[in-house]
C-alpha cells in the first residue's frame, strides 16, 4: 500500500534520512522505533509531503506520490496524526473534527463519522463545544486521532502519540490504535515505547541516525540480541 524507496531528506545542509526504505501493506500496522533524533518525525512528515524530499521515491497504492502536495496526498486517503498533536487550538473540539472531514467526500459522511469517533471517545462528545487548546494532553491526543479518522483515511501516519501522556492514558491510546488497525486502516506508527508498539504491530523497523538498522516481525526483532539490548530494552 505504502512503499518508501531509498528516501533521503535534508534539514538545510544536514541530512536527516539517508536512504530509508520501508513498506506498509494493506491492513497492516507497522511500527517504526528509534531513539530521539533518529529521524522518525522527518520520515512521517516527508511521507505526508509536509517536508520536501531530497532523493528517493514514495509510492502509495502503486502510484508515485513523491511530488504531490499535502493537499493532493491527503485526497488519496493518507491522514497524519502529527507529533505534538498540532490541533487547531483556538477552535472547538467539533470544529477540529470538521476540518478533519473538510474534503468533499469525507464531508458527506460527517454525521456518521462524528458518531463513530464520539462513540470511540465519549469524553469528546461531552466537550465538543470546548476550545481544543484548553483540553488535557490525553484529550487533545484523542482529538488528534479523531480528527484524522474523520477524513476516512486508508493509511494513518501516527507520530509518537504518547509523548507527554500519563501511563494510564498511554495504555488507552494503544488500545485505540489497535482498534483502528482492526477496523482495516493501515497504520504506520512511530513510537519510542518499543515494547508496547511491537505488541500491537505486525512488523517493525528500527531507525537510527537516519538509517533502518533492523526490520522484521516483533519476534524476529526480539530475537536479535544486540538490537534488543540497544533499542528494545529501555521500556
Amino acid at each position, binding site marked *: 500500500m505504502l512503499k518508501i524507496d531509498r528516501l533521503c531528506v535534508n534539514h538545510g545542509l544536514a541530512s536527516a534520512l539517508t536512504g530509508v526504505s520501508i513498506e506498509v501493506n494493506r491492513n497492516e500496522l507497522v511500527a517504526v522505533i528509534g531513539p530521539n533524533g533518529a529521524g522518525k518525525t522527518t520520515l512521517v512528515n516527508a511521507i505526508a509531503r509536509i517536508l520536501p524530499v531530497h532523493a528517493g521515491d514514495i509510492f502509495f497504492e502503486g502510484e508515485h506520490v513523491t511530488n504531490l502536495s499535502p493537499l493532493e496526498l491527503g485526497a488519496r486517503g493518507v491522514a497524519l496524526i502529527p507529533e505534538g498533536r498540532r490541533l*487547531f487550538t*483556538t*477552535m472547538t473540539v467539533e470544529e477540529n473534527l470538521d476540518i478533519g472531514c*473538510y474534503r468533499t467526500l469525507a464531508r458527506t459522511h460527517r454525521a456518521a463519522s462524528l458518531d463513530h469517533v464520539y462513540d470511540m471517545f465519549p469524553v469528546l462528545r461531552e466537550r465538543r463545544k470546548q476550545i481544543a487548546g484548553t483540553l488535557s494532553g490525553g484529550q487533545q491526543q484523542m482529538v488528534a486521532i479523531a480528527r484524522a479518522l474523520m477524513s476516512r483515511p486508508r493509511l494513518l501516519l501516527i507520530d509518537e502519540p504518547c509523548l507527554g501522556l500519563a501511563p494510564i492514558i498511554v495504555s488507552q491510546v494503544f488500545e485505540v490504535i489497535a482498534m483502528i488497525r482492526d477496523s482495516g486502516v493501515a497504520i504506520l506508527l512511530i513510537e519510542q515505547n518499543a515494547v508496547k508498539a511491537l505488541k500491537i504491530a505486525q512488523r517493525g523497523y528500527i531507525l537510527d541516525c537516519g538509517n533502518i538498522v533492523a526490520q522484521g516481525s516483533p519476534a524476529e526483532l526480539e530475537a536479535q540480541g544486540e538490537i534488543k539490548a540497544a533499542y528494545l530494552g529501555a521500556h
Partner: protein
Amino acid sequence: MSATLIGQSLLSGLMSGCLYALLGLGLTLTWKYLRIINLAHFALIFLAAYLTYEMSTRGWHPFLSALLLLPVFFMLGAAQQVLMSRYKVDEFASVIVTFGVTIIIESLIQYVWSADFIRVEKRLARGSLELGPWLAPWDQLIMCGFSIIACLLVWVVLKHTWHGKALRAQLDNPSIAAAFGVPNRKLSLALAGMGSAFAALGGVFIALLFTLTPSQIYSWFGVILATVLLGGLGSTFGALAAGMVIGVGESLTMALTAPAWAPIVPFTLLILILILWPERL
C-alpha cells in the same frame, strides 16, 4: 450643555462608529488572517470614492457604482495578495510596501481628479430621520445598516461556514490544515479580495458623506487603526463596538470642547492600546 446637544453627539458618535467599523472591516480581516497590515486599504477606499464620484457625474446611481466596484475591487485585492505571497512579504514589510502603494494610488488620484475638493451631489435619500429633537441623516443611517449587515455577515461566515472554519484552521496551523484538504492559497486570495471589496463599499459611502480630496486618505489612518486594534484583530463586532466608543468619544469631545480636539480621542486610545495592551497586535 443641553440634553439635546449631548443626545445629538451620542447619535452622531454611534453613526461614526458604524462608518469606522465598515472602513476597518477589510483591514482587520487581512491583518488577522493573512498577517498583512494593508495600509493600501485606505487608498483603495478613496479610489472607490473617486470612481463613485466619476460615475455619478455620468448619472450613475451610487448603488449601481457599488455593484460594479465590488467585484472589480475584489479582483484587485486578490491580485495584490498574489504579489504579496509571491514575494513572501511578511507583516512588517507589508506596512512599508502597502504604504508605498498608498502613495502611488494617491498620486494617481491627484493626477486624474486633481487635488481640488469635489463632492458627489447625488444623495441616496434627502433629509434626515427626526427622532424627537435629534436628527439622523438618511444617508448615514443607510451606511450604518450596510456596516452592521456586513459585520454580521462576516461573523456568520467565519463562525459557521466551512470556509470560515477553514480560514481559522489555516491561521492556527497551515500545513496541517492543508493536509486535511484546506486550500490555503485559494482562501487567502478570496479573503484579500473580500477585504478590498469592503474597501470599495466603504469608499462609496465616503463619497456620499464627505467632500473628497486625495490627501484625506491619511486622515483616516489613526481612527481606523484605533478601531481595529481596540476591537481586537479579526473581530467584526469588536470593531463595531470600538468604532462606536471612539465615535462617541470624538463627538462628545467636540461638543464639550472644540471640534479641533476630536482627533485626540482615537490617537490617545491608539497610544494607550499600544502601551497597555500590546498583545492586541
